[in-house]
């Protein structure tokens, strides 16, 4: 009887130790990947390539979904606001919800699905086919050659994508509100401009998306780098990347919102 109880306790302990070790490994991986002397010529070339894969190729999905989310927000907001004769407030409603919440969060979620999963699968396959080990045999540090450029590319692209998302969303709302529903263009912009603050809205949007970028890219790289080297392991790691980054994004978003706008 007591042996079973002790076994259970040991299971809990092993689970906790595994998790803490995982976090430690992730921390060491990121630390040794980014805290190194950068090699400017070669590093820039690698970074440009990853910016293309992670940023440019995510642009289409971000722009299209930004446009549609702005348009649908405007349409839903209009049907409610027009009942109070307050359809002029459509601009601030859309702009503030895009800049404060939807811009960083939806962009990060899409980014996790579009770029994060691809990073995990790519690095996972490199790991399982021993490509990372062969790099090491050629005296090339895989952390610096593979992990670091991907990390920086993610951290640079996601805030830019979030800004593009919010901007095109506001123009989508302009299309629906002004061109279709007939809100006066001047009052749309002037009320919007009066209520959006540069410091509290745009800077906070950037802070949020930088935090999301670090978290999503980090999870994706860690899951790929410490993959179980077989097909099943890669598929599991890819799923874990998307699930864990989505949960992390939503939880962190709540935390940051309470800190930024809670008072």
């Amino acid at each position, binding site marked *: 009887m007591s042996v079973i109880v002790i076994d259970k306790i040991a299971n809990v302990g092993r689970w906790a130790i595994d998790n803490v070790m995982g976090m430690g490994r992730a921390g060491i991986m990121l630390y040794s990947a980014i805290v190194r002397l950068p090699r400017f010529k070669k590093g820039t070339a*690698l970074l*440009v390539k990853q*910016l293309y894969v992670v940023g440019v190729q995510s642009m289409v999905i971000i722009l299209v979904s930004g446009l549609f989310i702005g348009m649908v927000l405007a349409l839903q907001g209009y049907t409610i606001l027009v009942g109070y004769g307050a359809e002029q407030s459509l601009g601030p409603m859309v702009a503030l919800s895009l800049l404060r919440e939807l811009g960083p969060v939806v962009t990060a979620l899409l980014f996790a699905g579009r770029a994060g999963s691809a990073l995990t699968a*790519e690095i996972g396959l490199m790991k399982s086919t021993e490509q990372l080990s062969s790099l090491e045999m050629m005296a090339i540090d895989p952390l610096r050659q593979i992990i670091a450029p991907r990390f920086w590319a993610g951290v640079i692209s996601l805030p*830019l994508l979030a800004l593009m998302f919010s901007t095109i969303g506001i123009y989508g709302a302009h299309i629906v509100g002004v061109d279709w529903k007939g809100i006066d263009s001047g009052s749309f912009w002037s009320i919007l401009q009066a209520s*959006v603050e540069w410091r509290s809205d745009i800077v906070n949007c950037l802070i949020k998306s930088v935090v999301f970028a670090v978290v999503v890219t980090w999870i994706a790289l860690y899951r790929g780098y410490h993959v179980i080297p077989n097909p099943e392991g890669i598929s599991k790691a890819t799923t874990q990347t998307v699930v864990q980054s989505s949960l992390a994004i939503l939880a962190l978003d709540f935390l940051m919102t309470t800190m930024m706008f809670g008072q």
Partner: protein
Amino acid sequence: MINLDTLGIDSESGNKGMLTRKIEILVGLFLLAGLAAFLVLVFNVANVQVSRGDSTYTLYAKFGNVGGLKVRSPVKVGGVVVGRVKAIKLDPVKLEPVVTLLMDKQYSSFPDTSSLAILTSGLLGEQFLGLKPGFVDDGVSMLKNGDSIDDTQSALILEDLIGQLLYSMSSKSK
């Protein structure tokens, strides 16, 4: 199977230069698009004004009650915005709210007999400051940087009005 290019090792393929060039151009466009989005958000959506330091002058005004007036609320003369509220503080001695106004230098000839009132746009809208230019006479000078406007009218507090209304109704029914 092993793609040398994804590992960042230079492979010996013929059109590599062209491909790198294309990627560099696309990445450049991506970064510029991000920068453009940032600039649109800052200057078109948040409407940040890059103002030269000497294009404004400061006025002060004391109120009994500022109601829902906020920093950055507009100061209007006949509906035209001539300045903005810069700060709202409580006078530590007299315990009265003091509002600091940043006025546009373009509109600098208001007589010191002008009066300020806290008005509301619409029934439940945002509050703003209405500046009413006063008369100009021999002994009247113009408002300068650092002057304060004495003739002020406090905000209309809806709750006070309702309270007064209820009070007068109950005293009438006695």
